[in-house]
C-alpha cells in the first residue's frame, strides 16, 4: 500500500508548497526524535559516571563527556544488596516457563477457534474478546489468596503456571493468523486420514511460526516488564525480578543513581534490541490486532 502512495506522488510535477511542507515535516520529525532520544543519552551519561563525581549537573550533560566508567554495568549486576545480574537470570527463568506455557496453550486454543466446529464456539469467542479488554489486575487480592492457600506464595509458580492456561490476547492473535492459511492444506491432510491432532502438529504448526515468534516477543515483554506479579508473590530478595528490583532501588532514598541508571539501561536494552531485530514482524502483529478491533 505504501509503495503505491509513494509511486503516485513521484509521478506528479514538483509543487513548491508540497516541498516546503515536506521540509517542515522532516524538521518536526527530527525535533521529536531528539525529544525521544535525549533523555536516553542523558541517562547513559549518568550511568557512566564514577561514584566520586556529582551525577546530576546544572546544566545537564546530554552525552558522555569525560567519564566512561563502564564497570558500573558490572558493579550494578553484582551489588550485594540488589544483584541486578541475578534479577535478570530470575526474570529469564520466569520468561522461559511462560514461553512454553503460552505457546502450547494458546496455539491449541487458537486452532480450535480457527479450524474446529463445536457448540457455543462463537459465544466463547465473544467471551474471549471481552476478557482481553477487562483489566484483571483488580483480581490481585483473590488470586493471591488462592495461590497462598495452595502454598505457592514465595515461589515462581503463580507467575508461570497461569500461562499454561491460555491468554486471550495470544489466542486471538494466533487464531487470526491461522485463518489466513488456506484450508486446502488441511483438507488434503484430512483426505489422507489425518485427525485434528496430526493436522495441528504437522500442517498448521510449521506454518504459524511467524505469529508464534510475535507471541514469544510479547511474552518476553510481559515477563520482563511485569511489576505487580513479582511484587505480590515474591518474598526473598534473591528471587526478585528486574522490574521489582529496579522499583525497589528507586523507592529507597539516598540511592547511588549512577548504578541505578546503569541497571535501568540494562532493563531497557533487551526489549529495544529485540524490537530492532524483529520490528517489521512485530509491527505487523500489533497492527493486525488494531485493525481487527
Amino acid at each position, binding site marked *: 500500500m505504501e509503495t503505491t502512495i509513494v509511486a503516485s506522488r513521484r509521478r506528479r510535477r514538483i509543487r513548491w508548497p508540497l516541498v516546503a511542507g515536506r521540509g517542515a515535516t522532516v524538521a518536526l520529525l527530527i525535533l521529536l526524535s531528539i525529544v525521544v532520544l535525549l533523555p536516553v543519552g542523558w541517562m547513559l551519561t549518568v550511568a557512566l559516571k564514577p561514584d566520586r563525581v556529582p551525577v546530576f549537573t546544572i546544566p545537564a550533560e546530554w552525552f558522555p563527556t569525560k567519564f566512561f566508567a563502564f564497570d558500573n554495568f558490572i558493579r550494578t549486576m553484582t551489588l550485594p544488596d540488589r544483584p541486578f545480574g541475578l534479577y535478570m537470570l530470575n526474570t529469564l527463568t520466569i520468561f522461559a516457563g511462560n514461553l512454553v506455557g503460552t505457546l502450547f496453550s494458546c496455539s*491449541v486454543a487458537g486452532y480450535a477457534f480457527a479450524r474446529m466446529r463445536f457448540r457455543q464456539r462463537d459465544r466463547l469467542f465473544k467471551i474471549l474478546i471481552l476478557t482481553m479488554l477487562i483489566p484483571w489486575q483488580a483480581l490481585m487480592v483473590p488470586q493471591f489468596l488462592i495461590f497462598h492457600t495452595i502454598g505457592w506464595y514465595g515461589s515462581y509458580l503463580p507467575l508461570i503456571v497461569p500461562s499454561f492456561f491460555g491468554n*486471550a490476547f495470544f489466542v486471538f492473535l494466533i487464531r487470526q493468523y491461522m485463518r489466513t492459511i488456506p484450508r486446502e492444506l488441511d483438507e488434503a491432510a484430512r483426505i489422507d486420514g489425518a485427525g485434528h491432532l496430526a493436522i495441528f502438529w504437522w500442517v498448521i504448526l510449521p506454518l504459524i511460526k511467524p505469529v508464534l515468534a510475535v507471541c514469544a516477543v510479547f511474552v518476553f515483554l510481559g515477563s520482563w516488564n511485569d511489576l505487580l506479579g513479582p511484587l505480590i508473590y515474591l518474598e526473598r530478595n534473591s528471587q526478585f525480578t528486574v522490574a521489582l528490583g529496579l522499583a525497589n532501588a528507586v523507592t529507597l532514598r539516598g540511592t547511588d543513581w549512577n548504578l541505578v541508571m546503569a541497571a535501568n539501561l540494562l532493563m531497557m536494552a533487551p526489549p529495544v534490541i529485540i524490537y530492532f531485530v524483529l520490528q517489521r514482524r512485530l509491527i505487523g502483529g500489533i497492527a493486525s490486532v488494531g485493525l481487527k*478491533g
Partner: protein
Amino acid sequence: MSSDEPAAWLFVGPWLGGLVLFIGLPVVVMAAISLTDWSLASTPHFVGLENYTSMVTDRKFLQSVGVTVRYAVLSLPILLVLGLALSLLLNRPIRGIGLFRTIMFVPSVISGVAVAVLWFQILNPEFGILNQLLRAIGIENPPRWLTSPDWAVPAVVLTSIWTVGGAAIIYLAGLQNIPAQLYEAAEIDGAGPRQKFRHITLPMLSPTLYFLFITTLIGSFQVFDVAFVLGGSRGSSGSLLFYLLNLWNEGFRSGRIGYASALGVVFVAVAAVIILVAMRASERFIYYEAEDK
C-alpha cells in the same frame, strides 16, 4: 461440515480451564470476601454491603478515584490526538521515514518501571532536565511536578506522551490500509488536504480510533507501575494515589482483605460496564464476527 466435538473441547480446554480457575473463581471469591470484614488481624464476619457503603466516606478511595479520573480525562484526548498527529507525520513519503518510525516507537517497548525510573529524575524540580529546559526558555518558576499536588498527574501524563509512538504505530497501520484510489478520486473532484482528511482519513480510521479509544481508556484505569515508582511512599496518601495503587495498599499493606475485595469488585464492574457500553455503541466492533460466517 460435521461437528468436531469432543476433540475441540480438548483443544480449547486449557484456555477454558484458565478462564474458570484464574478469572471465574477469583471473581466469585472476591465478590464473596467483599461482603466480609476480613482483615489479617481478625476472623471474617459477614457485614453485608458495609464495605461498599463505607467507600462513600473513605477519603483515600475518593482521592484515588479523583486521581484516576483526572488522569483519564487529561490523557485520553491528548494521547489520541497526538498519536494521530504523529502517525500522519510518519505516513509522509519521505526518505528515511523508517528510521523515524523506529525511533518514535522505541519508548513504547520499554517497561513502565524503566520509563518511570528515567522520568523520576527528568521531573526533579531542581536539577531535572525538564525544568532546566523550561528555565532556559524563560519560565522562572516551572512546576514542581511530582512534589506538587496540582502537577503530579500532568507529570504522569507527560511520561505517557513520551511513549505515544505505540498508538501512532497502530494508527499508521490503519492509515496504510486506506486505499490510495480514494484520495486520487477526491483530488480529481478538487478536494483539498483538509477535506480529504475530514471525509476520507477520519471515517476510514474510525475502527482504529475506536480500538485505541477503548484500550487507552482501559489503560488509564490500570496505571500502577509508574505511580508506584514515581509516587513512592507518597503515592499511598498523595497526589499519585491511582485506583490500583490504593487497592494494593488496602489489600497488601493494610491487610484489609474484605475492603480491598470490594474495591476490586467496583473496579471490574465499572470496567465491564464501560466496555459493554462501548461495544454496543459501535456496530463496527462486531466486524470480525460477520467475517466469520
